[in-house]
């Protein structure tokens, strides 16, 4: 064992950490060959970084040599950093040995572009192939596709990987042109489209033939950088909405820009926009699990999310005529729209009210948080709170009114961030 690997790991973990996707869920790979690993079901966070993010995968670059010069990226050609590269075997050994000790769910491998796109992509594929075929590894593998890589290589990658991602990074073509001049939207969207087609095709074939080889069973994802360029939250979420609808993406990740670069092409920020990033995740969550349309969350009059309150509360304050909601009779969908009531609480309410009419005490015992909800609900037509505040009064009351509401909001928002992770 040599110390060289330690040195490489430092550099190549460092360079990979700004890609925030770390999920290992949605896998369907079972351990059927009495081999190593199992990637069924929900991924596990085996640790948490000191910034509170889930550590689930060994997330590294194969190399941080790069021929491109994207302004927002630490690995860009013009940046003065130490360069190095793992060998295929080194990545395989690290993955297997970490996995055997229950440190990780699998590997998330990305790379700077070494020589050219195909040359690099071919090596990523080789790592995955070796893990699957030689090591009988059934853990989770997420491969980043290299912009410009050939269709055949991407297709091959999908045979071994559980998830593929194509990072868009910048939320508009214009930003892309100014910050990553070597890239363009059509080139990025092309592989995304072909992965989608492959996914659809594999699904259809597997309906006909049982033995169809799997293609990226956990689907594809992408990442958007927030705060490096001037796009509004509305532009960002509209783009995500399209990506979910048109490209069937499993996840869009948002990465609050960490100022790793003093490149003059960038907006000048000193701190990563963490709260904004959380609000965007919350809104994304509302679109995917709470039945909200992007148009309900943001519109011409409100192009950006309110940083002080979560987007569901924001929506409720703009749409007071839906409230109060009667807990004993309202539809599940409507209960879900009550600020402060999440999926779990809503389900419990629906279940319990079949047995007895619910009072506020029942809700408290079930763990439903009423701090915000109480302004928006009734239990058997009774309310806990005067309902005649106007929206601005209500907003102030919730934010500053009752003691610790503010910090409760903060905790809640971090909760959501975690669930999104």
């Amino acid at each position, binding site marked *: 064992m040599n110390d060289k690997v330690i040195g490489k790991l430092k550099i190549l973990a460092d360079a990979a950490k700004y890609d925030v996707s770390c999920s290992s869920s949605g896998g369907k790979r079972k351990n059927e060959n009495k081999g190593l690993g199992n990637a069924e079901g929900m991924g596990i966070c085996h640790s948490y*970084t000191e910034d509170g993010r889930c550590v689930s995968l060994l997330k590294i670059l194969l190399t941080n040599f790069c021929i491109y010069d994207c302004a927002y990226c630490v690995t860009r050609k013009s940046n003065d950093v130490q360069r190095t590269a793992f060998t295929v075997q080194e990545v395989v050994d690290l993955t297997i040995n*970490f996995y055997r000790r229950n440190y990780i769910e699998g590997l998330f491998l990305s790379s700077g572009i070494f020589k050219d796109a195909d040359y690099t992509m071919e090596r990523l594929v080789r790592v995955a192939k070796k893990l699957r075929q030689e090591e009988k590894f059934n853990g989770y593998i997420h491969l980043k596709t290299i912009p410009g890589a050939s269709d055949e290589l991407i297709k091959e990658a999908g045979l071994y990987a559980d998830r593929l991602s194509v990072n868009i990074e910048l939320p508009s073509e214009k930003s892309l042109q100014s910050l990553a001049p070597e890239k363009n939207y059509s080139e990025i969207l092309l592989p995304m489209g072909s992965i989608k087609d492959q996914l659809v095709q594999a699904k259809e074939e597997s309906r006909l033939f049982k033995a169809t080889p799997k293609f990226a069973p956990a689907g594809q994802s992408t990442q958007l950088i927030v705060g490096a360029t001037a796009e509004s939250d509305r532009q960002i979420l509209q783009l995500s909405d399209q990506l979910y609808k048109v490209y069937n993406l499993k996840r869009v990740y948002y990465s609050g820009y960490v100022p790793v670069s003093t490149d003059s092409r960038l907006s000048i920020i000193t701190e990563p926009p963490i709260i904004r990033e959380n609000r965007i995740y919350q809104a994304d969550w509302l679109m995917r699990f709470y039945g909200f349309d992007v148009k309900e969350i943001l519109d011409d009059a409100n192009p950006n999310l309110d940083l002080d309150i979560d987007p569901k509360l924001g929506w409720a304050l703009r749409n007071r005529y839906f409230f109060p909601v009667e807990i004993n009779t309202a539809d599940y969908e409507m209960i879900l729209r009550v600020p402060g009531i999440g999926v779990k609480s809503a389900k419990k309410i629906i279940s319990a009210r079949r047995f007895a009419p619910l009072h506020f005490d029942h809700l408290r015992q079930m763990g439903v948080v009423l701090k915000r909800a109480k302004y928006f609900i009734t239990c058997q037509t009774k309310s806990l709170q005067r309902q005649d505040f106007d929206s601005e009064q209500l907003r102030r009351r919730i934010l500053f009114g009752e003691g610790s509401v503010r910090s409760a909001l903060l905790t809640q928002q971090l909760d959501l961030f975690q669930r999104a992770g």
Partner: protein
Amino acid sequence: MYFYTYDGSFEGLLTVVFEAYERKAWPTAIEPEQLAQPSMFGETVRVITDEGKANRVWLGLKKRLSVSALESLYYTYLWEQSGFERLIFDYTRLVFDSPESVEGNYTAPFILQVQQIQKQVHREKHRMEAFVRFQKTADGLYYASISPDFNVLPLIVRHFEKRYADQRWAIYDTSRRYGVYYDLRATSFVQLENPGVTPRQQSKLNADQYDENETHYQMLWQVYFDHVNIPERKNPKLHLRHIPKRYWKYLSEKQPRLQ
């Protein structure tokens, strides 16, 4: 007043339910034999575990409850906190005495409590699946010790079996003094005497028992952990919420840095 004692097993507890119905004598208290205090009042019923009777109770429950509700009763048993026997008894009785399903009736206090216990135990189970760190020994065994808040070892076996089918591994619960050992063919519960795990391994392995590369990989993991962190986003409160301090002892990344 009836005081029931049993041998501490889940089957024993189900036998208590059977006996109580048989006698129509509802328990004032249910306690494991070795803990039971002789009572001056009332009658003490010493229940002998009977698999046949336990099975009949279980089958009766199975007819009336979903898999998840059955699981919540077993989880309540593994929860081990004082009063769990009573809770399981009351729940069971309500199930048998109600003409309709009682599941999801969170307006009944002990149904809600059993559901909350299920959640707690499940969370501990999940944490153990996440935080177990195997150390490889010189003879190729992957070993980990745990001391979970609740008795979750039986619940995590399946998870590790599926995952580590091609390596020998053992997980030992140091506070309850038993473990599981997988020998590439099957998994068995082991006590300290078992040859698979020697008494010295009951808590931590010594470095001299390690495989030659073990320290190296622990070090690499620490290096990795340090370098995925983004210092600009530091958030100690959130970090602690996810990994409360009492779990740090399991985690090599939370130990002093190896040289």
